[in-house]
């Protein structure tokens, strides 16, 4: 019953979204209040309906209602409750439902919190959210119904894949979706602005927080996914330039550009067409990415046949949504009044460069990801594009970007003197060179990229520190005054500095772990010892260990430093019966300067076991840096200026009027 209600809810939501997406647009265009007034209640209703549907599906999963096809395919009575819940979005139909729920939630947010938005803008934004919803709901209702029934009802479910029963993997999709879908607001605002023909500071002030929230969520989602890969997949790899990963990374890159571009619109009334374009492109890549993954266009090895109708529909939706908005952009963007002028050498100029480099980086990742498809389409030839391509092209693009990232915030608006700005960054430059030399001394010329990486990370960190230091006059005034200045600094200044510093920390982590990782691969018998990074690791042996739904063989390693026992590491190999699958669980121990990572493998039939022991220096800086970036986003979000909204324009009654002649007498 609950499944039918859920089904009914999404059908109804489709109807509501059609209404929401059409009538208010007409109302805003023709100034018909009755039609415009439909927008807000429609958005509220759509949200409530979809939440209901999501709850209905969740109930079906947690109740193990195998008469629902989706539940049968993706759940199992033996799954822990937590993973029954995460199973709701761990499949195509359910995750689409999550997508539309979040989409409706953002529309709901604009409807309920958008009181200080100009009414016509608000109406249009809600309407466009509705239109996007129509696209997804059509897919959901007609081609991907999560509430389909199966008969006869199976006794047990099929979905007990152990890989999915993991906190990192299970819970990173909601963050990703908050990110992808969050960018839809910027998209809707951009399209609405193009229709209205106006982009101003108020518009930017509204777009920024939503974009920030989406960006922060996406940062967390991507970091969680990488972290999961680190401890679960293979032996500590965390990024493979896989199409699925790239699909999430491209919106992130563009979203970063959008964030910064919107700042310029708000503060300087410039870069309007850039920002509008970026808003459209960011969400377009969200759409493109999610659909690439769902339509089966990028075949993975041994992919089963995907429903061709889905792919065709999705492409049609992309053409309408992206093609339509870009056509609108081509037509209306020239009418947007150009705003403040600025010299090329200025903060605005550095942000333009930032935009360009990020777009170039996105285009590079895009080409690498789609190249196999395009080549196949044109010549029928099959190639694959792997990490060597991306590493060779993406990394060099990032170098100038990182250099500029530290300088940009130090530049004044409108016109900057590069020499003067750099002079203020003397200390950062000195620290950077010092670190580079130190790296060279400690590590030698091989690998030389280590020196570059350490230098870049330090440059960012030092630049962020100098930025805050300057704003709080840390060396010019008393410390108490500095603290006071620090407290009064706008939160977005802190947020930006923390985020930039976070990226610096992450770069240091990446550099350290890639450059100086030590890998020890050997057959060990009980009692054998090997040395690694100043530790002695002794293999004790293996023992069988039963688990909740698996049986494991656990290896034990005792780790000594200076003859003192510092760690006991217990990696496992787990065999699951349903489905039949073997996973390796590595043992990871964070130590002062890196992770110790141990894996126990197969027996050689002679009492020895294949073991792998790694020391990964500074790998945790990558996770810390990612958290810092997200934290920077959150801190910026708490900036009061973003929540108060733009000041209301003074109306005719309050402006001093021309006094009629009579009053003078």
């Amino acid at each position, binding site marked *: 019953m609950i499944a039918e209600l859920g089904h009914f809810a999404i059908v109804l939501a489709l109807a509501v979204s059609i209404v929401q997406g059409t009538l208010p647009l007409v109302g805003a265009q023709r100034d018909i209040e009755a039609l415009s007034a439909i927008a807000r209640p429609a958005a509220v209703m759509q949200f409530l309906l979809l939440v209901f549907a999501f709850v209905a599906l969740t109930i079906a999963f947690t109740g193990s209602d195998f008469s629902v096809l989706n539940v049968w395919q993706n759940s199992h009575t033996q799954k822990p409750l937590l993973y029954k819940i995460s199973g709701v979005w761990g499949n195509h139909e359910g995750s689409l439902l999550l997508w539309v729920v979040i989409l409706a939630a953002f529309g709901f947010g604009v409807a309920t919190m958008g009181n200080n938005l100009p009414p016509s803008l608000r109406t249009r934004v809600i309407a466009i959210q509705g239109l996007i919803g129509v696209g997804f709901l059509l897919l959901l209702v007609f081609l991907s119904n999560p509430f389909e029934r199966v008969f006869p009802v199976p006794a047990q479910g099929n979905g007990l894949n152990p890989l999915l029963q993991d906190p990192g993997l299970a819970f990173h999709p909601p963050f990703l979706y908050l990110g992808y879908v969050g960018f839809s607001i910027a998209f809707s605002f951009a399209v609405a602005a193009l229709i209205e023909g106006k982009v101003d500071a108020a518009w930017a002030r509204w777009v920024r927080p939503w974009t920030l929230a989406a960006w922060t969520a996406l940062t967390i989602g991507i970091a969680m996914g990488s972290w999961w890969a680190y401890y679960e*997949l*293979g*032996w500590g*790899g965390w990024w*493979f*330039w*896989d*199409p699925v990963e790239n699909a999430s990374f491209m919106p992130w890159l563009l979203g970063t550009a959008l964030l910064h571009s919107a700042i310029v619109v708000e503060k300087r009334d410039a870069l309007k067409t850039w920002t509008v374009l970026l808003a459209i492109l960011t969400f377009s890549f969200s759409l493109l990415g999610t659909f690439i993954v769902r339509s089966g266009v990028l075949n*993975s*090895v041994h992919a089963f046949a995907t429903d061709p109708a889905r792919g065709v529909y999705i492409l049609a939706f992309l053409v309408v949504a992206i093609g339509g908005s870009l056509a609108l952009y081509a037509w209306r963007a020239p009418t947007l009044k150009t705003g403040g*002028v*600025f*010299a*090329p050498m200025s903060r605005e*100029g550095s942000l*333009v*460069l930032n935009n*360009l*480099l990020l*777009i*170039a980086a996105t*285009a*590079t990742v895009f*080409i*690498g990801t789609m*190249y196999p498809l395009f080549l196949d389409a044109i*010549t029928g*030839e*099959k*190639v*694959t*594009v*792997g*990490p*060597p*391509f991306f590493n*060779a092209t993406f990394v060099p*693009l990032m170098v100038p970007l990182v250099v500029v990232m530290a300088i940009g915030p130090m530049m004044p608006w409108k016109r900057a003197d590069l020499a003067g700005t750099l002079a203020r960054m003397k200390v950062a430059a000195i620290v950077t060179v010092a670190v580079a030399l130190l790296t060279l001394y400690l590590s030698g010329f091989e690998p030389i990229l280590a020196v570059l990486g350490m230098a870049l990370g330090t440059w960012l960190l030092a630049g962020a520190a100098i930025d805050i230091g300057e704003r709080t006059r840390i060396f010019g005034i008393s410390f108490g005054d500095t603290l006071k200045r620090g407290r009064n600094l706008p939160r977005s200044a802190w947020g930006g500095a923390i985020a930039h510093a976070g990226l610096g920390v992450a770069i240091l982590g990446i550099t350290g772990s890639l450059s100086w990782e030590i*890998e020890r*691969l*050997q*057959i060990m018998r009980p009692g054998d010892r090997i040395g690694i990074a100043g530790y002695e690791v002794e293999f004790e042996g*293996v023992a*069988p260990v*039963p688990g909740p739904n698996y*049986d494991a*063989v656990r290896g034990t390693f005792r780790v000594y430093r200076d003859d003192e026992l510092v760690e006991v590491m217990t990696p496992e*190999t787990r*065999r699951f*019966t349903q489905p039949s699958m073997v996973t390796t669980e590595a043992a990871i121990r964070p130590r002062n300067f890196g992770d110790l990572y141990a*894996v126990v*493998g*197969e*027996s*050689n*039939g*002679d009492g020895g*076991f*294949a073991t792998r022991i790694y020391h990964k220096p500074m790998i945790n800086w990558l996770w810390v840096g990612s958290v810092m970036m997200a934290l920077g986003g959150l801190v910026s979000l708490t900036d009061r200026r973003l929540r108060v909204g733009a000041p209301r324009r003074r109306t005719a009654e309050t402006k001093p009027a*021309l006094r009629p002649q009579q009053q003078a007498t």
Partner: protein
Amino acid sequence: MRILSIAILLAGLFAGSATAQYVDQPLSDPQLERRAQVLHKEIRCLVCQNQAISDSNAHLARQLRVIVRERLEAGDSDTDVKTYLVDRYGDWVLMRPPLKASTLILWIAPFVILAFVLGGAVMLVVRRRRQQQTGVTPLDAQEEARLAAILDEQN
């Protein structure tokens, strides 16, 4: 039942017989082993998502690692080993596909994009410079008088 499955698991891990387990036994010659590990990073695990066989514990990855070691021990050069695998699996078993006309386009593309981007940046700079040069022309006498009149009206 549980004991049985643990026993099977242990048996599987201890097996040397029927279904041979491919074990990562490093070669005794450290030079050869180093070559093996470098090669492992260059060969794709065909059943994984974009991982090299050095990165994955999938059965195929393990099997291929062992095979690479065997071929090196048999005296193959690095190229021979790669050819051995390419003969069976095609070019796509290599992480870095050989440079052909079709992949050339791929590698050139980012540079084209970068040129585009930098070209765009240069164009923007030039346009800005030109804008600045036109500057602001001062008002002439008539416009000045009009301005004064408007300001008077306001007060």
